[in-house]
């Protein structure tokens, strides 16, 4: 399937790329929520984080915008601040290196990267089964770390934080065993903080 199309019928989307030099996944997710909120889209769009390794490594964002929805670059810029790069169609806004980051992220959208928002994400809270995850979201595979695909009835303790990845066109959620026979997403919502702490 075309990962950009979601699970429904093919539709035309355009991708907004933003690079504000976010240093951590939490920071990137926070910015992404602000940008998505500012766009005023109905429902949860597919929106992702991408590692940019040129220069000082950091994280850029991509957001799918449905056909017909309008994006006001100035409004997005007011959310991200003037130091961010923004690409929308042929438009380039912001410092050159950040525009490069946003372009690189946009080129990877649907190929690699981490989905921080997607349709159905608000229903993946508490404990859900693998089957429910596959039914309610664009996630195409729930894979156990160092193992095989998880069985449909496996219970997933989501920690209200589900962040699948694009891998070869598939949308894969990697999980790992936790207690009580459940699995949980590999990515922990509040990992032990970095830098001069431990």
């Amino acid at each position, binding site marked *: 399937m075309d990962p950009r199309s979601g699970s429904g019928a093919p539709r035309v989307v355009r991708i907004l790329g933003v690079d504000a030099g976010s240093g951590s996944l939490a920071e990137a997710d926070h910015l992404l929520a602000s940008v998505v909120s500012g766009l005023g889209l109905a429902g949860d769009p597919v929106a992702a984080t991408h*590692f940019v390794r040129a220069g*000082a*490594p950091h*994280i850029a964002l991509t957001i799918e915008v449905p056909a017909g929805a309008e994006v006001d670059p100035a409004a997005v810029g007011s959310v991200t601040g003037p130091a961010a790069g923004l690409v929308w169609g042929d438009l380039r806004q912001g410092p050159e290196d950040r525009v490069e980051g946003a372009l690189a992220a946009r080129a990877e959208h649907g190929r690699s990267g981490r989905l921080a928002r997607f349709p159905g994400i608000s229903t993946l809270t508490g404990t859900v089964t693998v089957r429910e995850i596959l039914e309610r979201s664009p996630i195409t595979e729930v894979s156990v*770390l160092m193992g095989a695909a998880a069985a449909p009835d496996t219970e997933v303790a989501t920690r209200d934080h589900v962040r699948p990845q694009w891998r070869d066109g598939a949308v894969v959620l990697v999980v790992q065993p*936790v207690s009580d026979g459940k699995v*949980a997403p*590999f990515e922990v919502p509040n990992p*032990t903080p970095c830098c001069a702490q431990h």
Partner: protein
Amino acid sequence: MGIGHGHHHHHHHDDHSQEGPADVAHLLDTSIADSDLSPADVSRRGVLRSAGIIGAGVATAGVLGAGSAAASGGDDRSADPAARSRNDDADYLWLAGDHHIHTQYSPDGQYRVIDHVRHGNAFGLGWMVITDHGSAQHAKIGVEKVNPDIRAAREVVNGTLVFQGLEWNIPAAEHGTVFVHPGDNEVAVLKEFENSFDGVVNNATASTPANEALALAGVNYLADAVTRKRVRDALFLANHPARKGLDSPHEIRGWRDAAPHIAVGFEGAPGHQAAGLPAPSGPGSGRGYYDNSPNASSFPGYPLESYRTFGGFDWMTATVGGLWDSLLAEGKPWWITANSDSHQVYGDTSVRGAGSDFNNNGFYNAPEHGGKPDLTLGDFWPGFYSRTHVGAREFDYAAVMSALRDGRVWVDHGGLIDTLDVRARVRGRGRGVTLGGVLTCKRGDRVQLTMVIDLAAGPNWAQFVPQLARVDVIQGDVTGPAGDRDAFKAPNTRVVKSFDIDQKGGSVHLTYELGAVDRPVYLRVRGTDGNRTGAGALGASIDPNGPQMDVLGSADPWKDLWFYGNPIWVLPS
């Protein structure tokens, strides 16, 4: 200074019974010409040439192979069979230690130096390194203020050597222990090092080529401080290397190659071993606080499982045929350690001192009684759970540093065993060489690896007697410098022998026969209580009963105990 030239011999005692371990890699590095080597090293390189590992006259590192063994050996000692077996008859004083400990001078610390030293001493440590985090406050205040506390602890507590070090924010990478031999300049050198090379102090944490170069400059600074006799000795070991994927293979190789006598290893097991105890009676995090995900600064080649511990050990060490083995297979000495990383102790009833102002003062006020145990803390006291045992020739600071440098080091968790004596030797020819050593022999000699293990004679600090259930021997081919500096696999390394241990108490004697050796190999050993084993990270054919990935929020460290020994090389000529 050229790569591999940095091995300093002036700390070694006169001892002709064992080859200096740091010699191997620079002998294998064919970018170093014979003319740049000492006559003795030229001779030893001849051994490798005749063994077929080094192509004669090849000027480019990485062009090796059995087909290019053109030069004659030229080993002037080969006429003497007794010399070839290189017996190590020294009697070592095995001292448990910990090189990763935080105090009230760390922004996430709490305790006085003396709190740690008294506990470490009581728990059996012979040496400790105080390693507060590099930071603006520490560089300005802490690095000086901690020194009188350390000097006082040296006076007050008998039987435990206390080094001053710091936890270096390695530019572009993770953290690492840096420490020096005590002396008049210990503070001055550490302070200058921190101000010049700490990643946080110098805003150089980002993974960029410039910051990677700054890290190498830092290693070279330490080497220079020793060369110029500003300090008698200095060492650097990388801490929790796989925790966030920040230490790329080429960075690790780079630090080592910059100064192999200074950059000597990494933590085989991180501290924070209580962090995986389940909530609410524990922190409920990852063992070692290994609960992270890849970030933009992470090395993209590392798999997701590298961000977790396996049997409490870092993935780089726990994976048979993994990153550590890839260094050993190159012939690069690189040693593992196990430490507490103690900041705040699981179940402790003390709290940070009231009215503390770390940002302005550079320390927390002395801890106070808090009234109830805090079960959300993830660390153990030094010596309580993690131990780095070094074979020192004497009980002094220089001997501990030499032992670490030479790799006479094994590590354990939870007091799994009391002693480990590993020897590689030519059958019938003396005691052979021990951990970190190089056994040179003739092609076709019958070599054996012997292990004498004193099982735990009494309870550990959790008040039970650990039971060793299995010992594994791991062997790999020595293939010379890797063409890819980012390689992290050793395809010819695997578990070659396992011993089930049924004996309760006393000493266990184990022997693994290598048979007639026809190529350079290295060997290392590992043991476990057998509570959590299964196929290793690279598959059951390589490691059928390896450590298992620790479960987030459900990892009782006392029920999953391991020991690891550092390697021995066997080089037939």
